[in-house]
């Protein structure tokens, strides 16, 4: 089964869960006074879940032709031939950045993010990396904090 139909399958599952929540769990919580209303919080989601399930089914049964992977920008059937490792590593780096931003502080976290990012991509001029990352970190912190007036915790949270 082509990827687009697999996606339709998972979206269908999501809509089944969404629809189940809308049809069977939401109305029980409704206060009696609101039950006289012609529209309930669950009304619109109910319509959406039916529409979403039908559309997902149409895509799932292959009503429309799947795209030819060779004609796409990235052929997902040969994903390993691309720089998959770099992409995954950078995504993990982004997640780590999200987790350490508060405890480590903006300056250190951003400097490390930019430097490690360049290293992952294969850059080996260490001095250039250090200078570019440090200058960019300081510049962005100044822009955001002073020019835009949005506070970013610059140092580790314990300070």
């Amino acid at each position, binding site marked *: 089964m082509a*990827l687009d139909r697999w996606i339709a399958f998972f979206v269908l599952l999501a809509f089944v869960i969404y629809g189940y929540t809308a049809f069977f769990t939401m109305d029980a919580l409704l206060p009696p006074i609101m039950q006289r209303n012609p*529209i309930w919080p669950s009304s*619109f989601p109910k319509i959406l879940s039916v529409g979403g399930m039908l*559309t997902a089914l149409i895509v799932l049964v292959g009503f429309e032709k799947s795209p030819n992977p060779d004609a*796409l920008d990235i052929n*997902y059937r040969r994903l390993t031939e691309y720089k998959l490792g770099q*992409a995954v590593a950078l995504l993990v780096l982004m997640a780590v950045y999200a987790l350490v931003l508060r405890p480590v502080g903006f300056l250190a976290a951003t400097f490390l993010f930019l430097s490690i990012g360049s290293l992952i991509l294969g*850059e080996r001029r260490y001095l250039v990396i250090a200078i570019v990352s440090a200058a960019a970190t300081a510049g962005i912190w100044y822009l955001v904090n002073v020019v835009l007036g949005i506070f970013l915790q610059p140092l580790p949270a314990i300070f």
Partner: protein
Amino acid sequence: MLEGLLIGLSTTLSFKNLAMVVGGCLIGTFIGMVPGLGPMSIIAIMIPIAVTIGDPSAALILLAGVYYGAIFGGSTSSILINAPGVASTVATSFDGYPLTRQGKAGKALTIAAISSFSGGTIGAILLLAFAPALATVALLFHSSEYFALMVVGLSAIAAFAGTGQVFKALLMTFLGLAMGTVGEGVLFNMPRFTAGILDLQGGFGFITLALAMFALPEAIYLILDPNRSRQADGSSNSEVKELRITKSEARAIAPVIGRQSIQGFLIGVLPGAGATIASFLGYAVERNLAGKEEQEKFGKGSIKGLSAPETANNAACTGSFVPLLTLGIPGSGTTAILLGALIALNVSPGPRLMVDNPQIFWAVIMSMYLGNLVLLILNLPLIPYIAKVLAVPRNFLIPFILFFTLMGTYIGQNNATELLILVGFGVAATIFRFADYPMAPLLIGFILGPLLENNFSRAMQLYDGAGFIWERPMTLALLVLAALLVLLPSYRSRRAQIRARGVADAD
């Protein structure tokens, strides 16, 4: 109208707003040149900054400037290194890059700039004529018509998604609408679909979603395929010199500009069509209209072939503001992001905008003229220097793009969990893109969802049920139109598919 123009002019000509136009155009050109970063990503990154400004006119002027700049920057990288930064400038590279290889890069850039300027300006004049008239009509609409109109807009976006894509686009729309219901709605004072997670109480952040749907997948594509950012073979001949064009060349492109401004504008007004379709159609039409001799030159460096898509895409950008400003319904991903920004700034676009906030309405229109002027007189001489951004090594560029998506999300929400949501949705959106699912309908659905539900609920309450659908003929007509829009193209493509199968079953 004259009064409105004066209001707009006085708002736009304040020092702050002029700085916004110039700054927006420069930033847009700069980033738009980076292959892979389209106007949607750039505007999404800029939104937190725009929201911080606080003044809605200034913010919208900034974002509109970024939008034009991005399209112009995209044309520049199309012409200089054959790597379109933006889908709507792909057609520009057909004739722009051949001109560069002939050593006429400067001339090509000038033609592109003049065409963009004319297309944008003529588009703005048409917008000036169209928008107030349309807004007057739209003031007569009730919530049931609004509801129906939004349904038409959403189905039109699916219908224009292309052959074999209609139901995928529709599925994405439903997904976006469903995601829009997460959190505490305006109408009902109860959290929905939050699964007890406190961070979801306020719903998904729209900036997070916009960045995850567009900027992050683009960046991941750039990482996966290093050739994507360097498709050119000889970047040495991209040296820009001799910006002048001759009189006869000007005479040759004048009718093209005239025709494509109007055609591009009208396509831009249609929901779902937008600048990309306008540019390809403009190219095709001008090719058919050209004489036999000229037709041969198309694709090998024809100035008409360069002028047509450039005029059309800018006119279409302007045209796409018509439904946004008059109906509050975005016809494209970019205008959807702008709508989100407006809502974040406490402005509700729609026919009331002209009555309640005339200075915003007119300032945006006036800023379009100025934005086009800035692009022409400021950016053109700067192009050789701005083009240096194309030489930034990928090893440094990509971490910065990723970092800007993170910052865009973080500044808006000040919440680190949002960054994890960004990464998660970004990965999902990339997988969706692998399978060629269009992402713009999801975002448009997400932004329109709450508005759609509000109007639907209001109509239901007014008519004590779904009676408004058949009691209001206009609503019924619009809903029938919406159904036809989805069903007709898919029916036709299905028949074409069956017919094709009858001919050759090799696939």
